[in-house]
């Protein structure tokens, strides 16, 4: 298992953002759904080793991230796209991705090829030498995805990765997710249920810091049978599970 979470909790003052979550994940694409404030980003940040838990246990890639050595090893094998990724406006696309490849401790001899492959993966070959300040929001998001995959991560964490992408790019992105999901654990936090339906093998639905559903997209769809709210079957499942959790 690449991710083993048990009774994981994160509090901010009196607010419990993540409240006793259990989760296990091996290779595959996992969708993390939920309304605003459900705790998705906090959970993802803990898995990215950016935010330490208040309590509970977290094992990533068979290591305990609380100690420096294992944490560093996890970070070498991790790809993370934060919800709000800032950019150095004076860097080119290639320089930005190369910078983070080096900070991920990749062997410097492998970096140029890995950077080129990541740029091509996200379809930004024509913009590799463009300054980041000249790119559109969708292109910047793809730069963020490229830095996340540059080290061929075993654990890929993506927070709202499709925000700002046009429909064509979203379709291409889902293909990339499926490709990575064959050899790595990919966890995608999103508001867009169609991304989950198209790319995810499992889906976890969070509300008020707790997991209220975990299963396949088909199982979530089945939850929505006979439920009126939502245009798509998965949306109806989503609404039905949330309504049941809140009642």
């Amino acid at each position, binding site marked *: 298992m690449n991710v083993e979470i048990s009774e994981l*909790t994160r*509090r*901010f*003052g009196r607010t419990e953002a993540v409240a006793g979550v259990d989760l296990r994940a091996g290779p595959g694409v996992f969708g993390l759904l939920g309304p605003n404030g459900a705790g998705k980003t906090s959970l993802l940040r803990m898995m*990215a*080793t*950016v*935010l*330490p*838990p*208040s*309590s509970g246990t977290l094992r990533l890639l068979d290591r305990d991230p609380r100690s*420096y050595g294992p944490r*560093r090893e996890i*970070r*070498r094998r991790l790809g*993370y796209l*934060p919800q*709000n*990724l*800032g*950019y*150095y*406006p004076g860097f080119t696309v*290639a*320089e930005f991705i*190369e*910078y*983070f490849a*080096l*900070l*991920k*401790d990749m062997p*410097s001899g492998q*970096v*140029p*090829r890995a*950077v*080129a*492959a990541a*740029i*091509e*993966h*996200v*379809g*930004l*070959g*024509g*913009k*590799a*030498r463009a300054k980041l300040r000249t790119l559109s929001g969708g*292109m910047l998001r*793809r730069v963020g*995805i490229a*830095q996340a995959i540059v080290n061929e991560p075993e654990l890929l964490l993506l927070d709202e990765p499709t925000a700002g992408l046009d429909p*064509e*790019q979203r379709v*291409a*992105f889902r*293909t990339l997710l499926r490709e990575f999901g064959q050899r790595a654990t990919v966890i995608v936090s999103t508001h867009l249920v169609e991304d989950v339906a198209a790319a995810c093998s499992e889906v976890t639905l969070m509300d008020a810091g707790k997991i209220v559903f975990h299963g396949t997209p088909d199982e979530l769809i089945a939850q929505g049978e006979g439920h009126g709210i939502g245009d798509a079957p998965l949306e109806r499942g989503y609404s039905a599970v949330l309504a049941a959790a809140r009642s």
Partner: protein
Amino acid sequence: MTRGPDMTDHQRGLPGPGPDGVDLDRVWIGVAAEVWHRRPGLAERLASRLLRSPGLARALLTTPSLLLGWVLATTVVLLAGVAFTLSTGTPWVALIAPPLAGAGIAYAYGPGIDPSWELSQSMAVSDRMVLLVRALAVFGLNAILGLVASAASGAVAAVTFGWLVPMTAVCGLALAAATLTRSPNVGVLAGLAGWLITVLGERVGEGRLTAAVTSTALVLPYLAVAAACVVVALYATRTPRGT
């Protein structure tokens, strides 16, 4: 996402395997790697060897207060200090060097100046190590520039070297304030305010503007302030515990 709308015509026209079974995609990646790769300069190669980490070396070379514009601005201010010292007899270089170095330290690293701070925190090269290396490099460069300027202004040895200890304290204060408040501007202001209060306080007490630099009685308090501020900076950059 490969072969998206932003790919060049040349790339779009590439087939997968070539006529002789050559994987043209692989060939292209090799070519692109050569073309897009930014060759590290001499300074980066040296830093990489010294630090034994190409990532740390790149992080060092991208320090805002080590960029050419910043270093030139620092040099210009020190040159102005040399000119004022020579024309007035007051050792202005010794008085302006500490807050100048403090400003450089405040702008060395941190959430206030790093737009990708969240991402940087998830990297294998630890953010604390980046902060340490950058702060030491900025401190060292400012010390060298200040010493050269001070010597050029013809100051006596006590003044030439006297400001190094207060500079350590001002740098510590700027670093602590910048990391604690996550704002480099607050760091700069704290360093400047602390230094102004010390200089003016000593001026009133000792009757000399340079007393803050030359008084041996202040060495220990300066070192104590510097040590306390480093502890505060380490506390501010620790991995936060859950509440």
